[in-house]
């Protein structure tokens, strides 16, 4: 009995190695093809930007029928990792590369180029039935770190605040933590939802919840959610997030959106980036609910 199993294991190992070798052979074949003149490029990264990048890719492919662009999400970190591993040509990121990632790129002999391709505002949303319509950055920090737990502390009804956040893998999570929470930890009772659409769904359903999403999604949700006007401090004017206020810099919770390429962009990669930065590309930025660069 035991001997049969040991024998079986040996055969399984041999079979496994044979399979691995086969798979390896296949991927080598692909590498050889990709070193030739590249008509096909891949873009991977930020989930926030997937919609925007896909629109760019579609318009680009329509203008250049012989080119092919494939777009996948996964998150800014995933995209940067893919860029460093050489499995994507362009990484779309909603945050800058971290020191650790830059060091890793250097180790691999890569010099990632950073290109700002648009801007995004982050809207803080509540249920339309909530009487609160504005908040200071300081109040938001208290809500999301657990300092405030009831709406009455913001001048609203005496109800518990339900804090909603993205998962910690999201670029938006880190940006919000850095710029609004002033690098403090989120409250442990914050509910972490796996997607932007889940946050909008939850805020639209639950009267006393609060969450944050990219401006494009908040505008797209229409009347289902209410965006809060944000005051930098008690004395400042409350600013509603909009294309104009993000562009002018008046709205405080905004960030640039980046493309990273492994080196100086060349060939199709350069063509694509130029297209995105050009007038037609920037028009698409506007249509997707983000803010053009200038």
């Amino acid at each position, binding site marked *: 009995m035991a001997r049969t199993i040991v*024998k079986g294991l040996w055969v*399984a190992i041999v079979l*496994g190695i044979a399979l691995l070798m086969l798979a390896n052979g296949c991927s080598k074949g692909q590498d050889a093809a990709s070193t030739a003149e590249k008509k096909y490029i891949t873009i991977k990264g930020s989930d926030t930007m997937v919609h925007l990048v896909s629109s760019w890719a579609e318009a680009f492919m329509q203008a250049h029928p012989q080119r092919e662009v494939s777009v996948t999400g996964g998150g800014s*970190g995933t995209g940067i990792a893919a860029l460093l591993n050489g499995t994507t040509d362009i990484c779309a990121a909603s945050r800058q590369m971290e020191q650790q990632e830059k060091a890793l790129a250097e180790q691999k002999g890569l010099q990632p180029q950073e290109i700002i391709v648009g801007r995004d505002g982050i809207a803080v949303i509540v249920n339309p039935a909530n009487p609160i319509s504005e908040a200071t950055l300081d109040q938001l920090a208290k809500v999301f770190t657990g300092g405030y737990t009831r709406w009455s502390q913001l001048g609203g009804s005496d109800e518990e605040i339900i804090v909603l956040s993205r998962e910690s893998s999201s670029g938006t999570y880190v940006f919000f933590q850095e710029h609004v929470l002033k690098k403090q*930890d989120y409250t*442990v009772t914050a509910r972490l939802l*796996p997607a932007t659409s889940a946050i909008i769904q939850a805020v639209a359903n639950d009267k006393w919840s609060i969450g944050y999403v990219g401006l494009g999604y908040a505008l797209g949700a229409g009347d289902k959610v209410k965006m809060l006007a944000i005051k930098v401090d008690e004395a400042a004017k409350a600013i509603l997030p909009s294309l104009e206020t993000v562009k002018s810099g008046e709205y405080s919770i905004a960030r640039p959106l980046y493309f990273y390429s492994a080196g100086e962009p060349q060939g199709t990669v350069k063509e694509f980036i130029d297209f995105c930065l050009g007038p037609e590309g920037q028009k698409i930025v506007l249509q997707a609910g983000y803010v053009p660069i200038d």
Partner: protein
Amino acid sequence: MKHRWQDRAIRTLLLGAASMSILIVLLIFFFLGKEAAPFLIKPGLSHLLGDRWIPVSFQKESFGILPLLTGSLLVTALATLIAIPFGICGAVYISELANQKEKEILKPFIELLAGIPSVVLGFFGLVVLAPLVKEVFALHTGLTALTGALLLALMAIPTIMSISEDAIRSVPTSYKQASLALGASKLQTIWKVTVPAALSGITAAVMLGMGRVIGETMAVMMVTGNAAIITADPFNSVRTMTATIAAEMGEVPFGSEHYRALFCIGIVLLLATFALNLVAQRVLKKYHMI
């Protein structure tokens, strides 16, 4: 002579294919251990036993898996409690009371329930079940441990029902005949004789159902709210081990402490399902069910 050689070659090949699963399980254990082990050296096992899971922080990262463990346990226990009555009553009905036609309708639908992709169930949970839980219990939000448990119960019921049904059906007819001959009613026979006789098989069915529940990811991630807090309150939010791995693995810097911690969770999870399966198999084997 030649035939014998071919015979043996093919036999060995088939044996190898069958043993592949053993090899894969061993390799999975090996690689999980290899990725997780550095965490036990630095920062050490004690960090894993903390009560705060804050993997991304500008202050201080904490990798205590206790809230995740209790989260998984709470959801699994609730789901099992909900699934057991449905699963066993359904099994009793199908094996003892249903006529042929009812069986022909009921059984395929149970199998169908088992086959629904969990992400579809999760979506159903988010859009239909969560608002319903919120309404019924007058809560502020439907993203609670209970919502997750209800969804998971839907997944455990088919497993519990079909294996329990096998167990009940394999109770010797002589037991039932003896009970009926002594003047017991049909219902008395079912609850006092048949079900107790099949109890070991039913226990195994429940354990296999629990194994399915504890390993489930997508559905719970969408409806439990994923807040890493230690709680026994079904109306609170919980974060399960599976949801943590699924949500964070994609973004984690390769080789970081966070990465190692996720592999440690993987090992805990694997050991839990492994133990449940092992016990269930033992129970089944002891009573000659397989």
